[in-house]
């Protein structure tokens, strides 16, 4: 099921002070398995400090160009894997990688005549860059209108690449940068016309509606793709909804990271009964561990990949007891009401919890 392949790193590029992009060599016999759509992600596996961890990283390469698989990883403060990738990996290392997955994809076809609105912030650029390049290359008649939010000029990932695309596709590609804490240098007093203008502030409702007013869709089949951290997705989506953009035209990808609402206290030392692959497992849940982590530390093999509450690979059904999900970006309210839970995010709220992996 969650099969990992060993891929070798062929290139490792520093993109900004706190991010790298990593390219993998794909042996010929894996071409089919690793076939992907723009917007999908890879899941990588490391053993750090004796513990197996998995994280998902979106592909920033394009499936229609002759180029290696590439991911872009930005350091998260105190983050286990993102720092490991940035600080410890070298060209020639092998990494365990799962085949590409994900539903944040566009149906990109040569004959399309569309306007794509792309909203991204920070490391959220990765799947957006893949969609962007694929559309520009594959759909010669489509337009792309994009906002990219960052804290300042120096934290913009893939800056050269984006500039090149702006030059090459100036008649169909609009890119506006939005900087929340732009650096102003004394040399700004002599600002040359060459300096790229940017919007100041975070991507919020006002920015979104002004941007669309200024760059209305030309091709009327418009779609809206959003990827970024924390509240950026929600804000952008609400702004679009406020403007009556139909929900079925909006696509989002969350990287996880934010926990919603107040943290709940877990029931200490609760009993977990889990039905997994025909086996009935009974264990105590140690303090601070999720149901998924509890099973992994028992040497079990529950399904999972992002461990961020995003992909829903780790879904289970709660038969008895109650759980709290620290983060849920995958399940609908109806699914939760039906008793489904993301085990990678669940902590027990009752003395005993029984779950089934279906």
């Amino acid at each position, binding site marked *: 099921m969650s099969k990992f392949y060993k891929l070798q790193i062929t290139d490792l590029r520093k993109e900004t002070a706190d991010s790298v992009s990593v390219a993998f060599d794909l042996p010929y016999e894996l071409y089919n398995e690793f076939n992907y759509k723009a917007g999908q992600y890879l899941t990588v596996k490391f053993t750090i400090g004796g513990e197996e961890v998995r994280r998902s990283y979106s592909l920033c390469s394009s499936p229609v160009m002759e180029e290696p698989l590439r991911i872009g990883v930005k350091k998260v403060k105190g983050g286990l894997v993102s720092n490991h990738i940035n600080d410890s990996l070298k060209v020639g290392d092998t990494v365990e990688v799962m085949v590409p997955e994900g539903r944040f994809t566009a149906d990109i076809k040569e004959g399309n005549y569309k306007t794509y609105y792309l909203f991204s912030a920070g490391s959220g650029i990765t799947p957006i860059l893949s969609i962007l390049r694929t559309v520009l290359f594959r759909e010669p008649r489509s337009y792309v209108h994009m906002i990219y939010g960052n804290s300042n000029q120096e934290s913009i990932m893939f800056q050269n690449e984006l500039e090149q695309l702006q030059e090459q596709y100036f008649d169909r590609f609009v890119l506006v940068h939005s900087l929340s804490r732009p650096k102003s240098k004394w040399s700004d007093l002599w600002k040359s016309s060459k300096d790229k203008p940017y919007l100041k502030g975070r991507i919020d409702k006002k920015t979104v509606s002004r941007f669309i007013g200024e760059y209305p869709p030309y091709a009327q089949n418009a779609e809206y793709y959003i990827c970024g951290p924390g509240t950026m997705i929600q804000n952008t989506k609400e702004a679009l909804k*406020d*403007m009556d953009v139909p929900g079925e035209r909006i696509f989002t990808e969350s990287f996880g990271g934010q926990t919603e609402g107040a943290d709940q206290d877990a029931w200490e030392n609760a009993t977990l009964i889990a039905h997994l692959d025909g086996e009935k497992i009974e264990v105590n849940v140690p303090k601070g561990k999720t149901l998924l982590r509890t099973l992994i530390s028992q040497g079990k093999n529950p399904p999972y990949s992002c461990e961020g509450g995003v992909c829903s690979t780790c879904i289970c059904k709660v038969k008895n007891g109650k759980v709290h999900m620290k983060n849920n970006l995958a399940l609908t309210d109806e699914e939760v009401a039906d008793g489904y839970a993301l085990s990678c995010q669940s902590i027990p709220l009752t003395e005993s919890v029984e779950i089934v992996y279906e």
Partner: protein
Amino acid sequence: MSEKNKTMMHELPVEAYTSQEWLDMEMKYIFSKTWQFAGFVEDVAEPGDYISVQAGLNNIFIVKGRDHRLRAFHNMCRHRGTQLLRAVGKAKKAISCPYHDWTYDLEGKLISIPKREEEFPQLKGELHKCGLNLHEASVDIFKGMLFVHPDKDAPSIMEFFGEVEPYLGPHIVEDLVEYSENDNEPFYSREIKANWKIVVENYIDHYHLAHLHEGTLNMYDHARAEFGWAGPHYWFYEPLVPDYAKDVKNAAPYPLIDSVPEDKIGAYVPWLFPNIGITEGESSWNSFHVIPLAPDRTLVNIRTKVMNVSEREFTRQYTKSSMHKLWSHYGNKGKYEGDPETDPMASGDFMAEDVYACEQQQKSLYSPKFQVGAQAQRGEYAISKFQSVIKEWIEKYKDQ
């Protein structure tokens, strides 16, 4: 019933130009199955603006949403069919039917029905899930023009026009502004007493240019014309005659369109299937919309665009041009001597000449002696090709 006239024009029988039956078929299988011209993008400029247009058998309205995206719906209440919106205007948050006040939002969803509980107990749950939302249509933009298609999942507009696009003029239409004597009226509008296809065939007839228009369109070099077909569409280009090209800056009636590079100046005159021509010239850009009214009556609306320059600059060019010596032997001389006010053939106006020729031809279609004598193999090739596209289209949809 009288014997049907089976005499052929080229590919089509003469009755295709005279009978209601044929017009009904064309309305159903051509005008209701193709992207139809609906105006210029600036006709629906701001969120909330709408226009309604007749596209074949369908009345369709286009409204701009707050997200600046256009939506198109069939302009027909789902209750008992009453037309919802009149020609143009600005919608508020909702659209109400004048008859019984059924109300829809700007996404076409039914949101309220007067006396719903008492009168329509069968409509339970959320109204917009009762299957009574407005029928959706498609709308898109091509070359600064709005087009509608009656189907919600119409083939992409670029699938329809893509092939002919490379043959169109380099004009950037969005940068031009409309020119008209009276606000909100087309530059030219006239009912012609001829079948709509007679008008189209006249537009794509290369053979007539040097003859019917010998004194009116002689500033274009017909001998060097290039033309052909791309998909169901016709394309045509001819350069200016050397005398005109030499001093076009001073002689052109309006300021030259600056998006056209010097070596590309000329007349681009494509016909987009089925009923919209464009005339992309050196100093003006025109849409030529042909609307069938009856088998023997056709409305032609021409809208024209020019460079976006100041009134002063415009007048200066106009004055310069009207005094230019070129026009003493080009562009405005009637074919025959006579009173230019009453005789189209003496008017020195190529449109009047074309209208005259179309109406005279239509009259003869009813004569028992009517027959097409012969066809110019190059100069009239487009005419039989157009007829075969009509035939193809009807055959394609007739049996579906």
